[in-house]
């Protein structure tokens, strides 16, 4: 399969066919990124003439805007399409280490760490359905988000051959938990299902509305839409699968339908943890790909996942960030990559990336080992 463009490579894999090699992601999916600490060490290690102090850093996660030099060194197949910021309810700085976001959620940063959501508007007191209905939810049609977007998308499409990933700013369950409190919303599912559903309804309305609004602008240019939610712990989903199917799944279906009504892009869902019992449901509602494949979680065995679901969903990720990347030697990283490619790459349907953002404790040699071995082992037909 000679002369595939980066985009063709990704589309082929997502269509469950074998391209020339396994596609590689760094910075396309929002959670397959790199912390500024790791990036600083990497550019030094690669001998690149870049000034780390000039690198743009994302405020919340402290991830670096990756240079073309780095992305091309690793021959990364995807590029992210950046959204504009909301104008109507912009984030409000409370002080140097805290802000209130567009939804009214307060975020706090510990010293040396990164921002984490701290308190939601419905957290200290149980809301009524009227409270939820009255609340000033984000405007899905905020013009700030699409400012300059169509032009940026057009240029990415016409001036490069990369596959284009659009990260949706919001999803569903994660937003409910941020608004109501992590444990509070899970308790609501059992003790106060009307409120749990009320929140699901509104977060889905906002997220689906934003998806439709954005994709009306750029749907024709986007290859992958990325949704970052979280549905699993280390050893099990947040809720029993039966409850997920009954109460939560219909809202994900609504969001996927909204995306697909405006674009032919593939839909990629991010959920950490042990989500094995839900993968059949993800497939059923039309999700095309699953990230990050947290291999350190229970039942996320890559061989088994491929055997059971590989024909129907693309796996995106799988290179362990809990142990191998931060604590392993380069040979361990190479072996990890070899194992995941062996398990997930046959018949297409695999994009290689780190399970989560590469943190500051990952040595640059390991990052190089990851992508170089992905190149070496990832040629089709897979022989490792």
């Amino acid at each position, binding site marked *: 399969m000679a002369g595939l463009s980066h985009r063709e490579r990704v589309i082929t894999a997502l269509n469950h066919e074998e391209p020339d090699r396994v596609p590689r992601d760094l910075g396309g999916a929002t959670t397959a990124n790199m912390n500024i600490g790791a990036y600083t060490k990497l550019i030094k290690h690669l001998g690149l003439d870049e000034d780390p102090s000039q690198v743009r850093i994302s405020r919340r996660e402290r991830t670096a805007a990756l240079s073309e030099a780095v992305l091309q060194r690793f021959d990364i197949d995807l590029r992210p399409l950046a959204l504009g910021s909301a104008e109507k309810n912009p984030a409000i700085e409370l002080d140097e280490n805290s802000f209130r976001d567009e939804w009214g959620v307060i975020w706090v940063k510990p010293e040396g*760490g990164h921002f984490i959501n701290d308190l939601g508007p419905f957290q200290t007191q149980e809301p009524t359905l009227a409270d939820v209905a009255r609340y000033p939810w984000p405007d899905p049609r905020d013009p700030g988000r699409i400012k300059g977007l169509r032009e940026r998308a057009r240029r990415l499409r016409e001036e490069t051959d990369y596959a284009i990933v659009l990260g949706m700013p919001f999803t569903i369950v994660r937003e409910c938990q941020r608004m109501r409190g*992590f444990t509070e919303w899970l308790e609501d599912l059992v003790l106060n299902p009307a409120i749990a559903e009320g929140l699901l309804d509104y977060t889905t309305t906002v997220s689906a509305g934003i998806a439709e609004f954005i994709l009306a602008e750029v749907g024709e240019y986007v290859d992958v839409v990325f949704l970052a939610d979280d549905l699993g*712990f280390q050893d099990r989903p947040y809720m029993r699968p039966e409850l997920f199917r009954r109460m939560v799944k219909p809202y994900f279906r609504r969001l996927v339908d909204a995306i697909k009504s405006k674009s032919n892009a593939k839909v990629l869902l991010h959920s950490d943890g042990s989500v094995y019992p839900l993968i059949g449901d993800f497939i059923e509602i039309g999700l095309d790909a699953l990230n990050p494949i947290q291999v350190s979680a229970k039942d996320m065995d890559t061989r088994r996942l491929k055997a059971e679901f590989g024909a129907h969903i693309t796996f995106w990720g799988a290179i362990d960030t809990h142990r191998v990347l931060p604590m392993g030697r380069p040979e361990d990283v190479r072996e990890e990559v070899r194992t995941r490619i062996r398990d997930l790459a046959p018949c297409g349907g695999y994009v290689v990336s780190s399970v989560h953002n590469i943190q*500051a404790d990952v040595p640059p040699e390991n990052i190089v080992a990851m992508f170089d071995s992905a190149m070496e082992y990832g040629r089709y037909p897979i022989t490792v």
Partner: protein
Amino acid sequence: MDFVELSSCVIEGDVKGTEERTRHALSQGVEPLAIINEGLMPGMDVVGEKFKSYEYFLPDLLVSAKAMKTAMAILQPLLVRQRVSNVGRVAIGTVKGDRHDVGKNLVGMLLEGAGFAVVDLGIDVEPAAFVKAVAEGEAQIVCLSALLTTTMPMMRTIIDQLGEAGVRGQVKVMVGGAPVTASYAAQIGADGYAPDAVSAVERAKELLVVHVRNQ
């Protein structure tokens, strides 16, 4: 007094029912400690088993813990009055640089439900705070939580500082959190590790037996 109904309320996460039956038992002259030991704790034991066997998930665990906590709020003041001692004293916290608290909160709740006196030091906790809790006799067990590979190393720092303060031998250190493993725990000199909140309670009880034996 038949405690089966009370245990069932806890198992089913019936917060109101648990509260009502607790008050009823008290009004019948039942001792608070008996209500805890024969009604509430057996209920939480069953909840723990159901969680371990993947019948119960986190919402169920949280709701049962809430039922238990509601009853304990009524009973705790009465226990203090009776000077009844607890199973053990625990200080728990998320290490410095880390603000994640769900797992920590759950472990704290379940430890209280199992009869431990728990001091929750919160999140983003300075190592010195853990050392202080031990030095002042507030903790026989220290439980450390971290969700990030980048904050995990603080666990070793805390263990080192307990040594430097000369109190390492007075306390058992237990560690947990998504990236933490049993082998990491052993590497850094922790006494115990648990992969989830229910096994954390079991492990705490085991550690306490060892601890008391060695004092």
